[in-house]
């Protein structure tokens, strides 16, 4: 399952997409500790699988919360994306 957490507003689309089928195969969940803003958590989804998800309270403000990891020039790799060994996490912006 690909879970898209986030929103669209007047300025663009701000979703973090998590491929939960790939995420399942990673027991370490390195993305959780990699995020400097602590917005990723491990939840039990509707199919009783432990997978990564964006915290409820962060889903409406991703553009602002993730801004520090996205400078306008010389953008380094995103910590959450590079921490994921299965490449199951991506940002739409």
């Amino acid at each position, binding site marked *: 399952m690909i879970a*898209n957490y986030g929103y669209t507003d007047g300025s663009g689309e701000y979703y973090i997409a998590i491929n939960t089928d790939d995420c399942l195969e990673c027991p370490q969940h390195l993305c959780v500790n990699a995020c400097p803003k602590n917005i990723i958590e491990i939840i039990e989804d509707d199919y009783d699988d432990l997978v990564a998800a964006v915290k409820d309270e962060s889903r409406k403000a991703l553009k602002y919360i993730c801004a520090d990891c996205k400078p306008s020039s010389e953008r380094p790799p995103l910590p959450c994306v590079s921490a994921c060994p299965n490449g199951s996490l991506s940002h739409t912006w």
Partner: protein
Amino acid sequence: MITAGIDMGAKHIKVVILKDGEVIGKSKISTGFDQGASARKGLDEAGSQAGIELSAIEHITATGAGRKSVPEKNSEVTEVGAGAVGTIRLIPEARTVVDVGAEEGRGIKIDGAGKVIDFAVNEKCAAGAGSFAESMSRALEMTVREFGEISLKSEKTIPMNAQCTVFAESEVVSLLHAQTPKPDIARAVCDAIASRITSMVRRVGIEQKVALIGGVSHNIGFVSSLKRALNCEVIIPEDPDYVGALGAAIIAGERKTNG
């Protein structure tokens, strides 16, 4: 086996009670301020329609934005999971589910068993949800039903640029001052909601057939705009606002059976 699903929506609470998989009672009440008390009232009303005591219900699964506020629940499921299961029960050929409630819109891609393959939820933009149509119908001094009906009389496309309901309302006021006919304004609002929803659904990909669920499915103006925006037929089940509660009740049965 008797199970119940309760969908704690932002505006309404819907309850469905199933006995051996068949619906024997349902209710819909306003969510109100005290969600726990409203949940109890909804369960009582549905139980009374089914002719059973609440103690006869073997498993209650809660879904919806306020699902954590149901003291009587045995388990929870997300709106996405419940909507998928409810839809596949009513429309087995559906592969894309568009769920538009009062405060949120969801696009869900499902397989033949009702398992979610891909989903997107717009958790922020009220301009892609039912409360927007409600507030705009108030600005036009008509009910939501009249609003939907009158929009069908328009053949004109007026783009609404505002993404936010507050600015959109001022755009509607400007159109009123410019003496734009009400049907054209109503259609512009329905088109705007449909456009927001469509862009979100495209994120998960549109696969035929497309089902529309949630309370906004009752707005015929929005349905017409959505069909135009998606450029395909949209199937609406009977009682589209109860689909989430139905899905939760089915999941309650599965969880009871599987322990």
